[in-house]
Structure formats: structure tokens, C-alpha cells
């Protein structure tokens, strides 16, 4: 049985210096997202209780648990929409405090279960992306503090759609004109528009038909790895986590029960509850 409060391997004793920018390479053991002894309390009750985990850039951690496990609350704490009652959340070694700067907010992006609810129905996809790109002050060394010119923004928006596998003519269309899977891809493009370092995907395929589930997962995994993001994939569906994750964390009643590399977790789950979860999933005969 995994010690619930054990720190993940390689956790540094002191915070490292923050890398110079998104392109800067992290040290051999540092960088990415670190959740250290994080707790969240509602009405005096700890719904997340001293959870520690780390996600290195370019890797995907799958967080599983049943309803009431605290997994979604932990996600909300990581994106900064819920305050911590204890512990800390660090990005590349620096503390993401209670009040986050706009740069810190941009750095941690959330993709939710229902893409329709998170997209403004009155704006075209192009307008949604353009608003984000216009807000964004370029942080590159060549144009510090500058803004993108309009044509550059249009090109960037088309590039973002291409990244998630949507045609550029989607820019002129409204969210309702897309299927559920396509809307989720748009939500991913929107999250990536602000050049985040952490992507939190909370049940991103749970309301989608199985035929499009795979596409959305492949986009999240491919871009998360390719863009060197620390990706947290939250799912109640263990087969989703199995498909794309490098590590697996299991929560129950606010407590982290197990944190293990995916290969070991799915073959030899360390906690009896992890095993119960894995064994309860109905399998297709002959698969």
C-alpha cells in the first residue's frame, strides 16, 4: 500500500529558479507542476486532504476517483478558482499564490467536460480566439510587451485550429455549428491560445460519443507532449487514463491513495481500492 502522504520521488528540497521562458529547458528533475500537501476545505470539512503530486513538462498524469473523491476540487485549486486551506501549488518551482497574476492564470488552463457550456454561443470561433490573442501581451524577447498585429493574430488562430485538427474555415462559424467532439477541440485550441504550461482536462471526453473520444484524447496527449505541457487528465474512466497517461493518481474521500507509473498501476495496482476500481470496469469480450 502506498503511503498516502509520501512525497513524489524527486521532489526538491528547495524551490528552483524559474526558467527564463516557455522555451527554456527545465532541469533534470525540476520544472512542471507541483502540488505539495494541498488541502481544500468547505465548511470546515476537508474535501482535499494533504495531496502531493508532481507533473513534469511533457508528461500526463491521470487522476481517477469516484464522485466525492475530491478530484474536481483539486483541479479547481490547481487552476486557482478554489483557495487552498493548506499546502501549496507550484509552477516551475515558484508558488502560485492565492492571488495569481494574469500571466500565472494564463499559464494554467482548464478544459472542462461540457465544451458547449464553456464557449460563448454569440461569438464565432475566430472571435473567441482573436479576443484571447489580442489580450495576450507578447512575452518573447523580440517584442517585449508588444501586441500581435491583426493579420498575425488571424494566422495564429488558424494555426491553433490546425493544431487540433480543425480546418481554418471553422474560424467564421459559431459553436452550435460543430459537433460535441469538435467543440471540445475548439476548447482545447482556446486553452492553448494563451501558451499555457499546464493543461488541466477535467473529464474532457465524458460527454462525447466513443467514436470521437479517441480523437480528442489523441489531441490532448499529442499537443501536451509536443508543447511540453504538464498535463493533468481527470477522468472517472480508467480506460481513458490507460490510453494516454504516464502516471496515475487515485483519490478517494479527498485523500490520495496511490500514485504510480501507469505501466505498474494497471498491471499491479498498489492499493486495494485501485484494484477494486480496475476490476469493476466492464470489459468487452475478446478485447
Amino acid at each position, binding site marked *: 500500500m502506498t503511503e498516502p502522504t509520501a512525497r513524489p520521488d524527486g521532489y526538491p528540497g528547495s524551490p528552483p529558479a524559474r526558467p527564463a521562458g516557455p522555451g527554456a529547458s527545465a532541469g533534470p528533475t525540476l520544472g512542471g507542476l507541483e502540488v505539495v500537501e494541498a488541502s481544500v476545505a468547505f465548511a470546515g470539512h476537508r474535501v482535499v486532504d494533504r495531496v502531493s503530486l508532481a507533473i513534469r513538462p511533457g508528461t500526463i498524469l491521470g487522476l481517477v476517483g*469516484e*464522485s466525492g473523491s475530491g478530484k474536481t476540487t483539486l483541479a479547481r485549486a490547481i487552476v486557482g478558482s478554489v483557495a487552498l486551506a493548506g499546502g501549496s501549488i507550484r509552477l516551475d518551482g515558484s508558488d502560485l499564490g492565492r492571488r495569481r497574476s494574469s500571466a500565472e492564470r494564463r499559464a494554467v488552463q482548464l478544459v472542462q467536460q461540457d465544451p458547449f457550456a464553456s464557449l460563448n454561443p454569440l461569438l464565432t470561433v475566430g472571435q473567441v480566439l482573436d479576443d484571447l490573442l489580442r489580450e495576450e501581451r507578447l512575452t518573447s524577447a523580440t517584442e517585449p510587451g508588444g501586441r500581435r498585429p491583426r493579420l498575425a493574430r488571424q494566422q495564429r488562430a488558424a494555426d491553433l485550429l490546425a493544431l487540433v485538427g480543425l480546418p481554418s474555415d471553422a474560424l467564421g462559424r459559431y459553436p452550435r455549428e460543430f459537433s*460535441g467532439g469538435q467543440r471540445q477541440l475548439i476548447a482545447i485550441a482556446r486553452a492553448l491560445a494563451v501558451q499555457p504550461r499546464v493543461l488541466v482536462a477535467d473529464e474532457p471526453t465524458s460527454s462525447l*460519443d*466513443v*467514436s470521437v*473520444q*479517441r480523437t480528442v484524447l489523441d489531441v490532448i496527449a499529442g499537443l501536451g507532449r509536443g508543447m511540453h505541457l504538464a498535463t493533468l487528465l481527470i477522468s*472517472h*474512466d*480508467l*480506460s*481513458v487514463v*490507460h*490510453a494516454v497517461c504516464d502516471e496515475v493518481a487515485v483519490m478517494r474521500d479527498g485523500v490520495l491513495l496511490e500514485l504510480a507509473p501507469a505501466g505498474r498501476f*494497471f*498491471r*499491479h*495496482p498498489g492499493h486495494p481500492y485501485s*484494484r*477494486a*476500481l*480496475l*476490476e*469493476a*470496469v*466492464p*470489459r*468487452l*469480450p*475478446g*478485447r
Partner: protein
Amino acid sequence: MNTLGSLVVDDLRVSADVELVHGVSLTVAPGEAVGIVGESGSGKSLTLRAVMGLLPRGVHRSGGRVQVDGTAAMIFQDPLSFLDPLARVGRQVAEVCAAAGRTSPRAARVRALELLESVRLPDAADLARRYPHQLSGGQRQRVLLALALAQEPDLLLCDEPTTALDVTVQREVLDLLAQLRAERRLSILFVSHDLAVVTQVCERVVVLRGGRVVETGAALDVVTSPASDYTRSLVDAVLPLPVPAGGGDD
């Protein structure tokens, strides 16, 4: 020959402004469990609701024949939308018992408790005094099952009954369904988007797409050697999950 619990659906058509279900035919033999699988928009839920006569407002049966031999009852994905939020669950079950059996209120209350116990709700007497919002999702689905059983059904219609449940609770409810089916010789028509769940519950499967039957056959045959490209694509889209080593069975 006893045909109680059998169902014949013949050339069923369901329409709103346009036709949504285009001539679906299927049968359920007495005691048989048949699954309807399909993606969103396949017409699987509309087909089930048409059998029960519970189509949404603005949607109607526009053709075909539905013949149930015996009594049909239905359970849904979301029990909260079906349960009265202002009534204790014991009373809700008792009311259905009274209506179905035309018994005295006292006999109905006793029967309601029996039913809550028969769906393996622990401490049923205590639970009967609670309101729906005070129950967990799994407990509510069991209460819904008790309500369905109170109608003494021969055919149980199930519309994604475990889709909103946690996986360990889903397992319990599916096991319960199998036990009840054996005890009561229920026929079952089970709608789900989840092929694995359907093959666990049902002997036969009907695959729907766009309001039409694509394929029908023994559940094991349909998932291991699908006859249609569409069914194959559905099977292939199911993400594999290995069984952990060293389980209790080996």
C-alpha cells in the same frame, strides 16, 4: 405457451417535425435480455420510450406496432428526475404498490419495505423515511428499481440506468439487475451507449444508427465478429483496459 414478458416492435416510426426513428423492428422473448446500443442521435432512447408510451413533448409515434405481453416498467439514467423530491421514498414506493395491487395502505407500506429490501438497500426501514436528495446516486437507482418492481412488471425497460453511476456502484447495480431478473423471470430491454455494459447484461444486441437498425444478433457475436462496418467502428472505438494481474480469480 406462456408469452408473458414478450415484446414485439414492428416497423416503429417516431417523429417530431421530421421522422427520427425510421421503421425499427425488434423482439424480446419471455425472460430474454436484449440490448439496444448506438451513439447519440441513434434513436435508441426514443425507441425505448415509444415502447413505454413515454415520448417527450412534441415527439410522437408516427407508425408501426408495439405489443407488450404483460406489464412493462421503466428505469432511467437520472432517478432524481423521476422521483418526487418532496416525498419520502418509502411513501413513493408504497403509493405505487397500492395502485398496482389495490391493497390497503398498511399492506402497501409493508410491501414497499419488502421491495426496498429486495433491491439490497441496507437498513431499508431507515432509508424509507428519507427524501430522494438524501440518498446517494446508487441508492436512488435502487429506489427507482423498487418503484419499477412495485408495478409487478414482466418486462423491464432500462434507459442508461448505470451511466451516471460510479464504476463500483455500476457493478453493484448490474449484479442486482441480474439477480432480480433470475428471481422474477423478467424480460429486459436495455439501452446503453456502453457496449461492454450491454454485453454483460444482454444475450442479444440491436445496433441502431440514425434511427435505423444496423445489425442485430447474439451479443457475443456482435462484439467479437460484427457484421457491419459501423458496428466494427463502435467496437474498435472502445478503449482497451487490461485486467490487473494477481486478481482474486487466479
